[in-house]
């Protein structure tokens, strides 16, 4: 396990390093002055530009430029936005918090309902319930997230008028942005109307969370069902039946834990899919998260923000993938044995 963990972590570091090289090179590929793209300081600002030139060693070779770029990146100097002229690194934390809140909630919901429905479908194999669940999951899987969001907005916000459709909370509530995650922020703040703010935030939150949860949910249903069907063929299930255990006990103690193994392996992939959907969903719901921040920076050609957002989002996805893999190998020894046997 230690060898495997070290190998994965080493690979992660290498990958992140390659990512920084890629992002460094992007500054040359974007239109305009590479130094301005990197730092957000325009050449019109003579004094600051000269200082940045020094700091990023732009009078030296490209390798030394990269070295200085990496150095600045590591100490948290990610340049400033070309539009707002605020430091990128300080802006990232709140938007990251907002995105994480959405993604974690969506992931949790899809995990709970996905595994539950998948289990239920596998127990009713080829009966009506199974057919309905699988049919719905395959068709909802094919709905593009932006259309699903629009349909649900049309239904819940326009026709039924249950929920507002934009941003995190009614702007009348004056909640200080600390982590970006609105529920945490309300809990941290000491305003008198905390309960009302909480209710309002939840009212804003549930629709985007459902929109985002649908895609991973449908995939998790399918994966759980297939895994469960595989497991139910195994000899140990037959043995458990022969020992006269109750059906519920066989399912919950012997079936489900083993069926979770392929599900866990897929979680990293599901997170990547969720992240690409989150970019679009945040634009539709005007959610102040990293996805809408990134897309806006593309509209505004705000390259320092773009590279900061790209680095954070890519690093987050890679990190989650590695963590899922590590957990998978740690929790399921048979996977680990396979990995070692491959060598």
């Amino acid at each position, binding site marked *: 396990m230690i060898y495997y963990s070290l190998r994965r972590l080493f*690979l992660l570091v290498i*990958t992140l390093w*390659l990512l920084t090289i890629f992002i460094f090179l*992007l500054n040359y*590929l*974007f*239109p305009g002055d590479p130094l301005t793209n990197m730092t957000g300081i325009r050449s019109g600002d003579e004094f600051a530009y000269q200082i940045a030139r020094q700091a990023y060693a732009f009078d030296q070779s490209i390798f030394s430029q990269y070295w200085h770029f990496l150095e600045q990146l590591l100490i948290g100097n990610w340049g400033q936005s070309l539009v707002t002229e605020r430091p990128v690194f300080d802006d990232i934390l709140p938007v990251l918090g907002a995105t994480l809140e959405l993604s974690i909630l969506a992931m949790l919901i899809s995990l709970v309902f996905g595994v539950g429905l998948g289990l239920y479908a596998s127990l009713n194999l080829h009966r009506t319930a199974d057919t309905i669940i699988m049919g719905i999951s*395959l*068709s909802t*899987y*094919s*709905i*593009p*997230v*932006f*259309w699903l969001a*629009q*349909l649900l*907005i*049309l239904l819940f916000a*326009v026709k039924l008028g249950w929920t507002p459709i934009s941003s995190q909370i009614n702007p009348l509530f004056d909640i200080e942005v600390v982590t970006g995650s609105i529920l945490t922020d309300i809990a941290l703040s000491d305003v008198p109307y905390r309960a009302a703010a909480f209710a309002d935030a939840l009212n804003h939150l549930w629709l985007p969370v459902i929109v985002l949860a649908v895609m991973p949910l449908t995939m998790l249903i399918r994966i759980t069902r297939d895994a469960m069907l595989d497991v139910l063929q195994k000899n140990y299930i037959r043995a458990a039946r022969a020992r006269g255990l109750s059906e519920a006990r066989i399912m919950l103690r012997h079936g489900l834990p083993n069926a979770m193994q392929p599900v866990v392996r897929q979680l*990293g*992939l599901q997170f*990547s*899919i969720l*992240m*690409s959907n989150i*970019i*679009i969903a945040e*634009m*539709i719901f005007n959610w102040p998260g990293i996805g809408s921040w*990134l*897309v806006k920076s*593309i*509209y505004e*050609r705000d*390259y320092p923000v*773009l590279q900061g957002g*790209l680095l954070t*989002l*890519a690093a987050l*996805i*890679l990190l989650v*993938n590695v963590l899922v893999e590590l957990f998978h190998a740690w929790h399921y020894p048979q996977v680990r044995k396979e990995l070692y046997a491959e060598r």
Partner: protein
Amino acid sequence: MRNASIYFQQREPSPLRQIWLHMNTNPYAVAALYILGILMVIMVFSPLITPYSPDQQFADAISHPPSWHDEGEIRFLFGTDDLGRDLLSRIIAGSVYSLGYPILAVAIAATIGITIGAWAGMSSGVQSSTLNHMLDVILSIPSLLMALVIIAILGPALHNVMIAITLVLIPQFIHSVHNAIYDERYKEYVTASRLNGCSRWYLLTRVIFPNITTVVVMQLTLALSTAILDIAALGFLGLGVQPPAPEWGTMLARSLDQVYLSPWTMVLPGMALFLTILSINVLGDSIRTAIHERVRSV
């Protein structure tokens, strides 16, 4: 002369044919195949069958509801949008952007990706394992994010979207073909052919490739649905095909502010997109089940 088949010979259908036979027993897969076929025909003949030009504006019929609505007119079967353009014509013409261009992108990406994947699968050692690790990493980054970055470099336009989508799809093909070849390479029938002295080229094209076609076909359907979704998503974000081109994602983005007044401008292009992706996914899904069954039965 009569067919002189003296010996009884059991004919094993080829892997691709087995999949086809299996798919034929699944009514949903057959329906999906027909729908996709019809969509393709509509796409190919779209300039001929659109009732009006997709950009023609009817000043007398702005935001006209579809014909099954009480106020609808049969002149505009799907109604018109806020500029008085016939929605049916726009959806039909949009199939070129939303189905035709993804097919083109997938075809280019498949050609490049399969070539590199085959080469990598046939070679071994460091080169191959490094490639695999790199691909694992690249593939964990969502394709939409990669496409966004490429668009940020090149600028939003149709040909740039095509470049971005093609580039994004190539690693997926390399990965699946590489893995498929890698799995087959040490099987006994390949070793037998190698001992027979077949050249590497013969091994690849005649021995291994027929056995991985199903994987390639499945990857094709996956890539096609990714490409359609990504092009529509980029169009929706305003970073892809630029208006007034009737791309379905762009039409959806435009309908965002009219959804209260004329919901059909949102529902109908979305329906076209959904139907296309659904039929491709059902196809891919049944191919996957068929592969699964085949592996199980062996």
